[in-house]
Each structure stands twice: as structure tokens, then as C-alpha cells.
């Protein structure tokens, strides 16, 4: 007799059967559309362009060149094979000493050499995903909470809270002051949590910010440090985009700030990764760096659940300790990001679309408020569906980042080549132009009609059609928030 699905469901954990992995949010619907119809310059020029994936693909040529010139870094080449068995055997959760050293050195270089890091505090984890979860497991119990300034990376919901049972309390930021974190917002969020009997254990910030693409200024950082010391709570700084800073102001990391302040070091923890700065998300290199000895100690034991492959450690130890290469990479990468950012934001400006002024990250925070039918999140969703289905660009709606203002969208620019950027800009120009044309036509007919209601007219047919179709539901097997290239040769299974 077949077991009933619901009986089986009872036999699984709450974690396995709740939705707190967060993958059923509309954030991932866009990816679905992309996966069904991915853009290709020659093979599918009408497909959906993926602009919802914050990846850094601009500087692989430098890495490939280095790999070609350094066969010893691989334990599988003739030059490097003598290291194979020792490396393959090495599962010490301290990590290869040369790897830890290389990471500490690289972290310093990515911060302009203004600070140094101690290799003995470097703890490995399964990407920044693993690192963030690990830090929560160390600092908070089930039911405790962390404050997070909004807008924030959607997957924090899963990474910080899914298996840990930790809650997120957002600290609201808005465009009135360019989304800066204010003392008032922090205090308000903290108080609200207290009033609801929620035990706040800390504050987590992403600096440079995802999705804003901005770095925190020194004053803000100092006020955060003051705040957490006053409340005696932790500060976790996710600095995963540290080396994507491409223009001024320069990046001020938390280490710099606490060096000159009265701060309890036991409260300060950094999360890092090579996924964005180097463009290596597949290699799963996450780092927890804490100034709290107990957290380093315990975190290291926990890192057993997500160590970096020793093969990867070995290669990166070699690569990242090559000072000339690192220097060249960091400089070139920043230059290329600056250029790409410039091309993209200029292109948007030409059609009257502004982005938040940014100096870092792999994306822009685009202001499409004036294009909303209604200044509501429903209005944002309507516009978003038009952009995905009609304009065929997968961008990420601000609501998925828990932004408090509708109309903002994150659009990534570093995960494609120049030609694709051109196509994307062309489509945006056409889309905005279409809107303007409709507006002009409507004004000719009845000049007193408000601009917004004309937009409503021009978009209504397409949005209505989408609403009739309904939102597609992801099947867990098909979807992954991490699948950038469904037609990558890597995905063609060989038999």
C-alpha cells in the first residue's frame, strides 16, 4: 500500500517542509523565465537576458593566463602531481597553512593594504552562504534576532534563518537620504524588537552593499560600532564585495574603523568570499574572520560541515600569494568594472533612467518609480513582469530585497559581455521610448491627462495577459538560484 504523501511529510522535519528556504519568492520567477528562454547573441537573440545574477565575469582572462603559466598550482599536472597525495589527504579544518596565509594577504590587498589580517583567524566555510549561517550558529540561538538594514540580499532569509531559527529584523532605509543607515532607524528597529520580546543578538551589514552598490562612509560605520557597543550586541560585516569597489569613495572596511575606536573586539566578525571579487562562486570559498577567539575556535570546528576542497585551497594558495598577479588583477578588475558601470549607467541616463550613485558591486540600483502604474508593491510587480516578459530582461524587483519603497530594481552588469550589454540597453531604450511615445500620443489626444495614467494605458494589455497566465511555480528539481547558464556545456550530461 503506498504511503500517503502527507504521512511522509509528517515524518520529515519542520525545516524540510516549511518555506523558510525562501526559494518560492518571485525573485526566482525571473530566473525561471530566463532558464526557459535564455538569451544568446547568435543562437537566441530574442531570449531573456540575465541581469538578476550578481557575478563578476569581467576578468577571467587574467586568471586563465595565470593558470596556464603556473601548472604547479594544480596537483594534477606533471609539475604539480608530487603534491597530489598529501593535498588529497589533507582534511584538517585549520586549512592548508599556505592557503590561510594567502587569504589573509589577499584580504589585506583588497583593502588597499590599509589593514592586515591574521591567518590564524581565518576560518573556512562553504562559500559566504555557509559562512553567514555558521556565524549565526555561533552567535545566536533559535528565536534570537539579527538586525539587517534593508534593502538586503534576498537569500539572507535562508542563510541566516532557515536552519538556525534566527529571525531577521529589518532596519528600514529609504531614498530620502540615499538609503543610508541612520541611528534613528537602528534604534527604532531595536526598540520594536524589544517591545515584541525578541532578543536581538546583533546587526549584520553588507559593505559594499548588495543591492545598493555603495560603500558605507566612515561616519556611518563609526555610528554602527558605537551602537553595537552600547547595546552589547554583535556586528557581522559581510565584505564579500570588498574588491569590487571601482571608484571613490574608497572602501573603508570595519577593521580600519575599529582600530581607531573604543570597541569590544569580541563583537566584531567579518564574512568574506572569493565569489564576487575573483568571480569564483563555483569554487566555494567562504571565510569567517572573527576578532572573538571563542568564535574562531568554535567556528573552526563547525567549518567541518563546509570545508574548502583541498585541491582548491592548494591552487588558490599559489595564485593569491603571487603578489604581481594579485596587484594586476585587483587593478584591472576595478578598471573594467568602472568602465562597464559607466557604459551601463550612461546608457540608462540617456533614456532618463537614474540609478543610485554607486561606487562598488556588480549591479546598479535602478530607480523606476516614475514608471509604476501605482506607487505600490503590486505596481512594482506589474512593471517587473512587463520587464521580464516583454522587454525580456531578468532584473530583480526591490521588494525581493525587502526595500520599503516600491519602484527600485537591481540590475546586474558584470555577468555578460559588451555586446549583450548593448542589446540590453537597446531594449531598455525601446521600452522607455515606447512609453514616451504612448504618452505623447495620449497628450495629443487629451493633453490634460496625467502622464501616469497614459503609462497605465500603454502597459495594461500586457500586464493583464500576464495576470491571466498566473505566476509560474518553480518545481524544486528544475530551479536553482545558482544556475547561471542552463546551456553551459558543463550541463550537457555525458553518458
Amino acid at each position, binding site marked *: 500500500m503506498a504511503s500517503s504523501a502527507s504521512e511522509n511529510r509528517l515524518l520529515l*522535519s519542520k525545516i524540510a517542509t516549511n518555506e523558510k528556504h525562501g*526559494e518560492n519568492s518571485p525573485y526566482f520567477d525571473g530566473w525561471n523565465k530566463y532558464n526557459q528562454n535564455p538569451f544568446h547573441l547568435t543562437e537566441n537573440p530574442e531570449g531573456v537576458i540575465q541581469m538578476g545574477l550578481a557575478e563578476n565575469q569581467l576578468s577571467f582572462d587574467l586568471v586563465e593566463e595565470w593558470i596556464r603559466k603556473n601548472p604547479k598550482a594544480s596537483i594534477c599536472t606533471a609539475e604539480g602531481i608530487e603534491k597530489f597525495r598529501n593535498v588529497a589527504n*589533507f582534511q584538517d579544518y585549520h586549512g592548508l597553512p599556505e592557503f590561510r596565509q594567502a587569504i589573509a594577504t589577499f584580504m589585506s590587498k583588497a583593502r588597499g593594504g590599509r589593514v592586515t589580517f591574521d591567518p590564524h583567524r581565518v576560518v573556512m566555510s562553504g562559500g559566504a552562504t555557509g559562512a553567514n549561517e555558521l556565524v549565526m*550558529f555561533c*552567535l545566536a540561538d533559535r528565536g534570537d534576532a539579527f538586525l539587517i538594514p534593508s534593502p538586503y540580499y534576498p537569500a539572507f532569509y535562508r542563510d541566516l534563518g532557515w536552519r538556525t531559527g534566527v529571525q531577521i529584523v529589518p532596519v528600514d532605509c529609504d531614498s530620502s537620504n540615499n538609503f543610508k543607515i541612520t541611528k534613528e532607524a537602528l534604534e527604532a528597529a531595536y526598540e520594536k524588537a524589544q517591545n515584541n520580546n525578541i532578543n536581538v543578538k546583533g546587526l549584520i551589514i553588507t559593505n559594499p552593499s548588495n543591492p545598493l552598490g555603495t560603500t558605507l562612509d566612515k561616519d556611518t560605520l563609526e555610528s554602527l560600532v558605537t551602537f553595537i557597543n552600547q547595546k552589547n550586541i554583535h556586528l557581522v560585516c559581510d565584505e564579500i564585495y570588498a574588491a569590487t569597489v571601482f571608484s571613490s569613495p574608497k572602501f573603508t572596511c570595519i577593521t580600519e574603523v575599529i582600530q581607531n575606536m573604543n570597541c569590544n573586539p569580541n563583537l566584531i566578525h567579518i564574512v568574506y568570499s572569493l565569489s564576487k571579487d575573483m568571480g569564483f562562486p563555483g569554487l566555494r570559498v567562504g571565510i569567517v574572520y572573527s576578532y572573538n577567539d571563542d568564535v574562531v575556535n568554535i567556528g573552526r570546528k563547525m567549518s567541518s*560541515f563546509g570545508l574548502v576542497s583541498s585541491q582548491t585551497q592548494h591552487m588558490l594558495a599559489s595564485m593569491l600569494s603571487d603578489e604581481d598577479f594579485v596587484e594586476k588583477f585587483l587593478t584591472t578588475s576595478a578598471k573594467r568594472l568602472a568602465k562597464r558601470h559607466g557604459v551601463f549607467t550612461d546608457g540608462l541616463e540617456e533614456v532618463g533612467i537614474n540609478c543610485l550613485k554607486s561606487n562598488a558591486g556588480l549591479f546598479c540600483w535602478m530607480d523606476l518609480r516614475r514608471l509604476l502604474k501605482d506607487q505600490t508593491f503590486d505596481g512594482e510587480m506589474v512593471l517587473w513582469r512587463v520587464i521580464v516578459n516583454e522587454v525580456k530582461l531578468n532584473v530583480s524587483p526591490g521588494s525581493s530585497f525587502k526595500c520599503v519603497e516600491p519602484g527600485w530594481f537591481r540590475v546586474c552588469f558584470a555577468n555578460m559581455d559588451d555586446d549583450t550589454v548593448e542589446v540590453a540597453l537597446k531594449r531598455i531604450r525601446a521600452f522607455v521610448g515606447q512609453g514616451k511615445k504612448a504618452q505623447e500620443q495620449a497628450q495629443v489626444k487629451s493633453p490634460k491627462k496625467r502622464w501616469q495614467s497614459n503609462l497605465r494605458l500603454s502597459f495594461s494589455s500586457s500586464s493583464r495577459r500576464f495576470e491571466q497566465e498566473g505566476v509560474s511555480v518553480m518545481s*524544486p528539481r528544475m530551479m536553482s538560484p545558482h544556475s547561471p547558464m542552463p546551456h553551459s556545456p558543463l550541463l550537457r550530461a555525458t553518458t
Partner: protein
Amino acid sequence: MRMLSRNATFNSHGQDSSYFLGWQEYEKNPYHEVHNTNGIIQMGLAENQLCLDLLESWLAKNPEAAAFKKNGESIFAELALFQDYHGLPAFKKAMVDFMAEIRGNKVTFDPNHLVLTAGATSANETFIFCLADPGEAVLIPTPYYPGFDRDLKWRTGVEIVPIHCTSSNGFQITETALEEAYQEAEKRNLRVKGVLVTNPSNPLGTTMTRNELYLLLSFVEDKGIHLISDEIYSGTAFSSPSFISVMEVLKDRDCDENSEVWQRVHVVYSLSKDLGLPGFRVGAIYSNDDVVVAAATKMSSFGLVSSQTQHLLSAMLSDKKLTKNYIAENHKRLKQRQKNLVSGLQKAGISCLNGNAGLFCWVDMRHLLRSNTFEAEMELWKKIVYEVHLNISPGSSCHCTEPGWFRVCFANLPERTLDLAMQRLKAFVGEYYNVPEVNGRSQSSHLSHSRGQSLTKWVSRLSFDDRCPIHGR
């Protein structure tokens, strides 16, 4: 307010146990053939270093796999970007084929039901997160791998209730023991969600009998709970009886997707023991239950396998000539090495459980105990570490209910070092216990009291510092 979490402040990571302390002592004074001939020989580490030469020679002949190349083209960029938690399809296919080959192709696995994780450490924890809530329990036969206390309990908040197995029947699982464990859990108000077994067993070095597997299946069927079979040592079953996977038994009993128990049987695998690649962090979860696969897949985000490593191993494991030769040669060398250990122990008057798998023997030193207590076991263990300079694992660290058993590993050191270890052991036993060689059967012996007093000389306080390097088995 407590500044750190409970996870961070209590000792549920389990690393204060003697299992790990022995490693620490080894780290302070490791044996070296030339530089430190009197150092401690590491026999507490279940690693397989016997067949790495086969992998090295394959690599020498297949440079492309390693050099981020496919058909002459560089695929570095694509690999570096590939973070899809479904894993490289070619790698998963190669994994399931390898798993089937190890099982004599008596069962096959569907790559869509395989989830890759960062080692079996992560696989086991992920399973528990999927199957149990904090405060619930899993039943595990003793003796068991000490790392389970960390892997299964620490961050999940789930309890382990032991299924007591004894030497009276070669530590096999009995129906009585299963029922007693279940009752014990009920008495403690713990809801049992499943049974987790390791087959082949760590630390016993034996494969489960068909009867035991049938028993387990009936038990979980009857109680309506899960069965997780950690088959990490499946490729190390070097002599008869041959390894029987729980998946094979499901097939035997005509259990398919229409039977109740089908979706509740799961397997854990890894390449750390069979291939001797613990550094690469390659683990896997296999389940027939789509919901478990879906949940585990999402959870694997916290510990994916490096794409660089997936690519390399995909090429390696897809080479059927290599896998066939490797599996056969691995068995051969493990069998020979185990034989050497067993005979070396016999010369020292020590016998062990009759083992046919794994990277270790389950050694019977009950006759060397001052008394039938765990205190006496600890005293003996400390002597062995500090005087004989061998790091072996005391049974108590594996939650064995009988004092006097030790796990001794044989595949992580060169043969000549193993021989030296046995010579030391023989000298030790001869000097203190006057026990003659064993002729295939264990003998009891009586310690004279004067000998017994010298044991106390060797009890010393071990200091715990954070240099425990390894979490492996």
C-alpha cells in the same frame, strides 16, 4: 545575556572526547621514520592511503582533466562560475555509476536522487536537519563513529539513543536491542524519527548480514520511521561475506516506489574512504523521497562540492577501466594489510573481531584490563599512547558498552611502520602481561597486582588545546 549561542558554549561538538585527545598527543610527538623514530604512530585515523598511486598514474596519463580543459578548450570560466546546487550532471552520473559498480551492479542509482555535499560530515548533518526536529531522536547501534555526536547532534539539536550491541554475537544488531532502544527513547520522551547505521561498520570493520538488514527494514517499517545507511566504506569490503547495500535488500523484498518503506530508506556516501580523498570534501546523499531530495538539495548550498573537484573526479570516475581496476586493487591491498595487522596482533597475544571491511580492526584487549571497567580501559589506553607510543581509539569513545575494545587503523601508514607498531605492542604486552601468542582464539589472562600498580604511573592529565587537526574517521 549570553554573548554566544548555546552551540558555541557547550561541549556538544564532542571534541573533548578521548578520540580526539589521542590525536592531539600524536600531533605533539608524531612518529617519523628518520626524524622521530620514537614518536607516536598514528593508528587512530581511518584513512585509505593504499591506492593513491593508481590515481596518480591516471592523472599523469590524463592531463586535460586537471587543467580545466575539455576537448582542448579552457573551461575554467564556466567551472569557476558553476555553483548550481544540482551539481555537475556528468559528475553525478559518474558517482552513481561508481556506487553501482561497488555494489556489483546489483542495484542502480538515479543521479536525480543524488545530492552532493561537502563530505559525509555534511551529508549526515543535512539528513538529520531534513528528517528530525530539535529534541527528536535517532537510534544508532553501538559502537559507532565518535564524530556522529558532533555531526548528528550539535547544530541540529537532535538526540542519539544507542542500540546496544555486544560481543556475545559479534556486535550484531538484534531485535531485542532495537526494541529496547526504542523504549528507552520513549521513556525519555524523545520521538524517534529514524535509525542510522554504518554499513560496513565503523569501528567494527564488518559488513551487515542480510538478516540484520531484513531486521532493520522490518523494524523501521513497523515503527513508521526512517532508515539511513551510511555506506561510506562500501568500497572497502575486501573479503567475504560480500557487502550488501540496504538498497539491494529493498529490491530483494520487492520494495519499490509503491511500498511504504521505499521512501524512508536513504543512503550516505563519500569518496573519502574508498578513494582516499578526504581533502576533496565529496559527500553525497541518496534518497528515494523527492521531498527529501528537494530539501537536501537546497540545504547543500551551505556546503557544495568545489566545481574544480567535481570536474576532476567526473573525468576520473567516468573512466571505467580505472574504476574497475581501482576497486579490485583496493580490495586486494586492504585485505593484505588487514591480514598483516591481525597476525601482528596475534603475535602479541591479541585477537580481534573477524572483520571483512573498513580500514581498521576492532581489537579485543579485554584481557589486558586491570578490571572490567572503563576506568581501566582509559588507563590501558593512556599507557598505549604514552608508553607504547601508538595512537589507537578506545572503545568508550565509540560508545561501546563493553570495556576493553579498541579500534586500530591499518591503511593510513606504510607497511614497515605497521610492523614496527606491532613489535612495540608485542614488547609491551610481553613485558607487562606475559601473555603467550594467540592461536586464533582470544585467551584470558590474569594480571599480577605488582604489574597492575605500574599502570598508575602512566595516568596523566591530557591538556586540551585547539590543535585537534582532523575531524575524519
